[in-house]
Structure formats: structure tokens, C-alpha cells
């Protein structure tokens, strides 16, 4: 681990100012950053501790939604009464991730900024364009079982590891950020990036910007939802494929469908055109299969991860079936 300096910011303005120096990074829960610093994957020369800033509350918005402060712990979010009752999809997704200990430390803002878990990103002795731009991608021809099948580029096939973000994508949350040039709101779908030829950039957050809150719209899909996570063991494993499915049903007819996939791309994967196929249709296995096919159009495997294409389709069908059945039994 390399030496670094450390300061504590008491408010957003100071934080933004202090993070603007070269090599500076924010630290909140530290559950990912510190690991990466210990193995020399990340080398910040200055850390700005933001945990003292008052961004740790969950409040209702005028629009009928919820605002999650960036520094609310993942565990506190998942078990918050309003989240549990109005956005159970989010609650379930958070609890499907990491471990109780990590969720107690990790913050909501930090969750959005997790780095990929690609084997090669984690090993400084192997080429990785995300870690060291221009060095090459070891994963494309290497061991890629965990990696992406959608939205990849010749430079990077990393996945975004978050579960929470998959639910936030389905719920169409908004990310509020503040930087030197002021505040802005980023629709969730635009927050994370695809690798393209800049795989070192995970998101569109600028270096001087801080996430202040995540806003949930009023519509929470609390009646028909599922977070289905498929992984290699029952807990403490990243998703091979996960599905956040949310339905608005009228009888057995789908009024609105939201589907987001995790574990398959550099960002939570949404295909609004495919979701639209369900609009006004019967909630049936046959229709779900059509959506699943449409969702995986253009998917490309790299050998070890070919199975994810079929797995994702089956997972979408299963998740939609589960989401549908909830109301039938309610």
C-alpha cells in the first residue's frame, strides 16, 4: 500500500474542493477502495473522508418518492420501513449483495461506484485496460466466466458488480451530484458507462463531483417485483446473472414492465424496447420468453461465459413469473 494523505470534509463544498486535487479520492465505507489500495490496484495519494457530511438520511420527496442520502448505509436502506414497504425490490436487491458486515459499512453512494470484480483487474501483474489504459484486455481470451455478454468492447468485458444498482436501474432512480460547477441530476440509465474505448471510466461522474443522494420516483412496483440472483453459492458471491423485475398489472394484463439485468454488462442492463413488448400483453410464460429473447439480442459470449446468454433468458422468464404470481397469491 502506498502512502497517502487524509482529510475529513465536513460539508459538500469542502469535499468537492478537496477531491479536485490530483490523485484524490473520496472514502466513505471503504469496503471496496481499501481492498483495492492494499493490492495496489488503486493508488490515491489523498483520501477525503466524507463520512462526517450530513448525507445520511432517507426522506420523502414532494413528488411522492424517496431521497436516499449518499451516506446512508446499505443495511439501513434495505431495512428502512419506507424502502421495505414501497420499494421492496430495492430492499431485496441490497440484501442479495455482499455480507451483513459489508452492508453495515458500505454506503449507498459508494455502492454505485464499486469497481469490477474481473480477475485481471485485481491482479497488477496482468494487462487490463480498465486498470491501466492501453495495456490490453487479458479477459477476452482468458478466464471470462464471470464477465460480460452485452455492451462489451474489444477493450473490456468487465461487469458492474452491484446488486443495488440493478434495482435502481429498474426503478429509474435519479442520481444527484454536486461538483465545482454546481449540482446536476443524472438519470440512472446515464450514470454508468459502457466500456467502449475508455474502459477505465466506470461512470459519468466527474472527478470533482460527489454523489449527494439517490432519488426514487413515486412508482415503487411494491406489488409485483422480484430480484433473482444466480450465483455460484448461496451468499457472498457476485451475480453470474441477476434480474430485477417489476410489473404493473391489471388483472393478468401487463400495464408496465421493468426489467434490469446484473452481471452481464458494464452497467445494469435495460432494454426499454424489449420491455415495451409486454405492454398490454398477457402475463404469460410465452410472452415472457419473447421479452427474454429480445433482451439478449446481440449478446456475445467469450467462451467460458457463453452460458450466461441462455441463463439470462431463463432468469428473465423465471423472475417475471415470480413477479406475476405475487399478486395472484396476494
Amino acid at each position, binding site marked *: *500500500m*502506498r502512502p497517502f494523505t487524509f482529510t475529513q470534509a465536513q460539508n459538500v463544498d469542502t469535499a468537492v474542493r478537496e477531491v479536485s486535487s490530483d490523485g484524490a479520492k473520496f472514502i466513505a465505507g471503504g469496503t471496496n477502495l481499501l481492498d483495492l489500495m492494499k493490492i495496489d490496484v488503486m493508488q490515491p495519494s489523498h483520501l477525503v473522508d466524507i463520512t462526517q457530511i450530513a448525507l445520511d438520511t432517507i426522506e420523502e420527496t414532494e413528488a411522492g418518492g424517496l431521497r436516499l442520502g449518499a451516506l446512508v448505509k446499505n443495511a439501513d436502506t434495505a431495512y428502512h420501513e419506507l424502502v421495505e414497504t414501497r420499494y421492496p425490490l430495492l430492499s431485496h436487491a441490497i440484501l442479495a449483495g455482499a455480507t451483513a458486515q459489508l452492508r453495515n459499512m458500505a454506503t449507498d453512494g459508494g455502492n454505485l461506484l464499486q469497481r469490477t*470484480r474481473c480477475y485481471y483487474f485485481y491482479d497488477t501483474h496482468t494487462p487490463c485496460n480498465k486498470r491501466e489504459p492501453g495495456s490490453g484486455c487479458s479477459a477476452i481470451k482468458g478466464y471470462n466466466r464471470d464477465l460480460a455478454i452485452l455492451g462489451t468492447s474489444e477493450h473490456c468485458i468487465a461487469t458492474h458488480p452491484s446488486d443495488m444498482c440493478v434495482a435502481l436501474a429498474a426503478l429509474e432512480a435519479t442520481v444527484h451530484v454536486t461538483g465545482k460547477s454546481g449540482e446536476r441530476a443524472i438519470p440512472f440509465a446515464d450514470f454508468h458507462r459502457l466500456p467502449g474505448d475508455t474502459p477505465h471510466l466506470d461512470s459519468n461522474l466527474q472527478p470533482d463531483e460527489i454523489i449527494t443522494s439517490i432519488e426514487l420516483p413515486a412508482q415503487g412496483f411494491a406489488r409485483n417485483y422480484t430480484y433473482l440472483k444466480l450465483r455460484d453459492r448461496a451468499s457472498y458471491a457476485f451475480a453470474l446473472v441477476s434480474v430485477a423485475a417489476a410489473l404493473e398489472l391489471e388483472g393478468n394484463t401487463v400495464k408496465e414492465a421493468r426489467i434490469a439485468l446484473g452481471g452481464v454488462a458494464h452497467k445494469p442492463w435495460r432494454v426499454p424496447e424489449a420491455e415495451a413488448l409486454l405492454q398490454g400483453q398477457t402475463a404469460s410464460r410465452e410472452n415472457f420468453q419473447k421479452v427474454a429473447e429480445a433482451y439478449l439480442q446481440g449478446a456475445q459470449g467469450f467462451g467460458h461465459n457463453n452460458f450466461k446468454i441462455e441463463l439470462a433468458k431463463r432468469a428473465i422468464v423465471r423472475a417475471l413469473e415470480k413477479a406475476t404470481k405475487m399478486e395472484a397469491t396476494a
Partner: protein
Amino acid sequence: MKEHYTGTATNRVDGRAKVTGEAKYAAEFEVPDLLYGVVVNSAISKGKITRIDTSAALALPGVHQVFTHENRPGYTWLDSHYQDEDSPPGSPFRPLYNNEIKFSMQPIALVVADTFELARYAALLVHAEYESQPHETDLEANLPKAYKPKKYKSPPPSDPRGDAPGAFAAAEVKLEEAYAHPAHHHNPMEMHASIAIWQESGKLTIYDKIQGVQNSQKYISNAFGVPQEDVQVISPFVGGAFGSGLRPQYQLFLAVLAAKELKRAVKVVLTRQQMFSFGHRPFTIQRLAIGASADGKLESISHNAFAETSRFEDYNEDVVIWPGVLYNCENVEVSHQLVGLDVYTPLDMRAPGGTTGTFALEIAMDEMAYKLNMDPVEFRLKNYTDKDLNKDKPHSSKELKECYRQGAERFGWAKRKMEPRSMKEGHQLIGWGMAHGAWEAQQQEAAAKAVLSPTGKLTVSSATADIGTGTYTVMSQIAAETMGIALEDVTFELGDSTQPKSPLEGGSWTVSSVGSAVKLVCEKLQEQLLKLAQKMENSPFSDAKIEDVSFENGQMFLTQAPATSISLQAILAQDEGQPLEAEASQKPDKKQKNYSSYSHSATFVEVKVDEDLGTVKVTRIVSAVAAGRIINPKTGRSQILGGAVWGIGVALEEHTVLDHTIGRFMTHDLDKYHLPVNADVHETDVIFVEEKDEIVNPLGAKGLGEIGIVSVAPAIANAVFHATGKRIRELPITLDKLM
């Protein structure tokens, strides 16, 4: 009334020390003026270091030295000086020997600094340049280069019996398949660590994570040319090892090297990432050909293993002994071949060879049972053997049939339908499978010392280890029961190379070996006590022989006249309050030579497999074990539970990923190296089947360290087949293989 401590479920005597943090592990000893060493590892897997620049690291204030092949001191470099008690034949790896890189993550430098943080930083500043050479790490691609080693580490595979190829050709029912077991890394909770303390006198005191302190002592003595009596190795607690602590690892060598050169105390702790830089369970491919008559009698078994080893040592393990141990078949042919690759030498890992070999053999036998349309238990009963056919010797005891019976009954096996995919619950396909296994019950020579204080407190010691198995507790039980004193009055000490000689803690032989020595040394004390009592005036014991007296409740008495008794303390008072001491060494009895001794298990498993998604959940395990006398049913049960949990990992999760393009193990942490978590482990039932054995050793106990794991993974694989109709012959059984 005699207190029967052995055979009674007993809490760990070291439990309190462990949960309060009082128990100190190798890296935790507080040593004044300690320096910290951090290892730098090779970035390439084969080639040469062309340049190593340590100047930036050395420029940091507080960095004392960076040891590399260029500045290492000139010590002995003979192979024999680097061999240890668990070395396979070959030329052991010598850290910092020269600029040659033989495997990825090979240690190439040790940075020594005032603080750990500084050493870790300085290690990043060591810059090495390499000249890479083409490497080979792919076992499958290199199978044509397989060879039979000149010397085997364990006994060489048995000679053929009968005519396996001929019998196979003539058999009515045949199976020919290959099975792949991936590489595993031990990953004990505690990382490997050593503190080496150099003293003015030139003596070395070393705290080491090791499964046998005297192995480290001899290794350091040989490698550094220091007399054995000048090297003391201490290791009172080991946070799991599973075989990874059988051989001294490179952190020990490097810590001692630095301590000697700098004349200081130096601590070196490996990181979790570095735990993937040395020994592992080898990737092994097994080819099995089995022939049977239509009514299910085995006619022929061929079992041929191909396993990786390093370029410098020929590691092998008992992968192919199991047909001869477990099945009655007249025509058997086995072989074990090695493929040298650019990796570190594999290393014994819980039930080495047993886990690997049983996995293949027991899936193959399940496949045969299906070809024959026979119940898998019936099929095994039909081919049951009372003899160990490898050695042509009877078993000293073998209650495997009772394991089948009790295990099947507890599990409800009788209700099983043979047909795959015959049970379903919603999307979940339910499968029931079974397998059996064995592990040899061995006894090694071991010694122990006992000291009985005038107050009646007994201290027994032997240089063995407790790797979490319960050695402290079990030895205390044996001593307390033999001496007829309270368990609280016994202290067992271990993990110090100055203690009486003990074999490595491994092979499931510690209770058998050290336990027998503990019993013997207590019996020697009893003889001394009787002699002392006979010196008393008008001693009622004057004519008594040792066979005539008993020891219970802190008293010695005439067995035929219990009223004639004397307390041990009263006897000791005769000797002017001097403590009584005895030392004894116990060898295996000659009568064992005519017999074969194995622990046995039968494991029954229920799995639920999602028909669309391929996810597997092991919902029930019943493990029935016959292992002679169970000294402590509580710690014994924990051993079997641990084996069952690990078996889930072996079957479904564990494997170290090797990228052949770069020749490097890519799994470097417990996020990616999957072991079962609580959520993976459900109902697990352990049955100890009664088994009397007066031959195996004086305690009648066979050892439990390994038997718990061997039959679990194949039972799970067989249950997955029963659930899905899919036969997976390559571990781990991940969901993609079942979709």
C-alpha cells in the same frame, strides 16, 4: 467409579483461550524490536530475472534490507538440506537461490523494514525485469508427456491383479469414462506466518505456523547449518492448515534468513493472495474402465490417474488405491502418472488422493449401478470385500456394512426410486445419492513426557500440533482417564520442538500415534507410583504387581480389594514432594502388520436442483462413519461436519482458476475462491457406527481427520444425477453444467 473421559463428548479444553483471544497464533507473539518482512513475488511463470532494482525500496528511511538472489548469503544449497519430512522425491524449491523463475508468484525478494506498512510499501517499489520463456501449465494439453516417476512419494501403485483388460473385454456390462478434479488451494483461516528471533548466542527462537514444529526445526537446522539444539520452534495454536502446514513454507526460510543476517527478530506473514503461491491439491484426470456381469458382479477395474506436479519435485498421492480397498474384484489394474508443469509442487490437502480418487471411483460405480439397474447400496454390498485386496490382508475391523445400514435408515433411502428425475417439487428436481469411502488408520512412532506434581496435577507434553482438530482436549482426556484423575487436573502441552518427538500432525494419525504415547507414559508413571507406594512402611501394596492395582478418583487401590487405597498425593509425599516424571515412546505393535486398518464412511445426500436455472442446493447429508473408538464424540462430530461442509465445496464450488495463457493461478482471494458459506449448509447428520478394534493401536481409535470428506462430493454428484439425469464428471458442478 472410574471416570470415562474417553468416549464422552467433551468441550475443548482450549475453547476459552480461543474465543477470548488468549490463544496466540504464530504471527501474534509480541516480540520486542521486531522487524517486518514483506515478500515480493514473480510476475512471470517461467524465465529469468534479468534485473532487479531495489534502490527505491532501500532509499526509504526505515527499510533495513531487501534480500534477493543477488545479495542472499551463501548458505548450503544441497537438495538434501532443503528436504523436510513431507518432501516428495526431487529437488526442493530454494527461495532466492538464483535468477531462475520456475512458477508464477515465486518469491523473488524480501523487504525488511521497521513497520509492516513501510515494508509493504517498499515491496511495491522493488522493480524486477524478466526474460520470459514459454511455460506449460495445462495438464490436459500435456497429457502425452505423462511419466511414471522413478520414485513415488507414497507407496507406488499396486501391481496388476488378474487380467483387467481381458476381463473388461469379456464383461457383459462396461463403463469407460474420464473424470477431472480441479486444483484446490488449502486456504486455512490463518495465513502462513513466521517470527524468527536471532539471539546473541546465535540461537534462534521461531514462532511458525506448522503442523509439526520438529519438521521446521530440522529444516532450518539443515538449510542454515545451525545445530538442531540451537533452533527452537514454537507453535501452540494453528488456525487451520489442512496439509498446507505439513511442509515448512517460504515465509519461514525468509524470516530466518533475514533474522540471521540482520541479527534481529523478523516477522513474515503471507497475504491471502500469497496463499495461492505455493502447494495445492493437484489437478488430476482419472480414466476408469469398469466391467461387470449382468447380475452386478465386478469383473474388471482399471483406474489410471494423471496428475500435475512441478518441474522440480514428483508429488503424488494415493489416488488409485481405492478399488483394492473398497471393492471385491479379481482383475484390477491401476496407475498414477505425472505431468511436469511450470507450477509449484502440489501439497497434501485433507485426504490427499482420497478426496480425488474417491470422487472418480464412486461416480463411476454409481454409473455402473445405473447400467445394471441396481440400487447403488445393493451394488456395493454385492461387491463388498472383507479384505484389503491391495495388501491381501484382512481388516483389523470394518463396519462399513453397518454404515450403509444405519446411514440408509436415518436417511430414508428405502423410499428411493431408482429412476432419475423421479422426484420434483415445483421447479426443484430432487435427487438422492450415496457414496462410500475409506481412509487408512495409521500409527507412527511418537513420544510423550508426563510430570505429576506433588499436588496431583499432571502435565503431559509432546511436540505435536492442534490444527483445530481438538488435540489438546483429546490428549487431556486420554491422560485423565488413564491416570484416574480429574480432567481439570491435566494439562497437555504441544507445539514446542523441545518436547518429546512427535510425527507431523496429519494423516489422521495423531490420536493413534500421540494418544498411544500419552497412554503409555501415564502407565509408566503408574509403575513409578506403585514402586514409591511399596517403599512406604508396612505398605499394603508391597506384594502388588502393576496388574493388581487400579487408578481412579486420584487414588491407587488394589483391584481385588478396593478398600486398600492411597491417594496419588500421599504417594508423592513419600518422595519429599518431588514431582514424578516419565517419558515414553510408543511404536506400532507388530501384530498390526498382519492386518490392514481403515476408517470407513457411507454418505447419503439429498439435493434440489432448479430444472431451468441449474442451481444446486444440498438439503440433507447423512454421514455414517466407522472409525474405531471415538475418543471425543463432540470434537469428532465437528471433524465429520467439517468434512461434509468441505465436501459441498468440493462438489459444487471450489477450484483455483489457472490462466494458461499467462501460466498463473488467477484466483487470489476468498471472494473468488468459493468455499461454502452458512447459507449453503443445511441439515447434516453424523452417525458414529460402533466398531471395536483391538489391533489398530492401544486406544482402538482410527482417526477422523480425513474420513469425513472423502465420500461427500461423489455422493452429491450422484444425487445431482438422480435429480437431473445429467452425469457431471468434472468438478465443481456449477450451474452452467446443469442448464
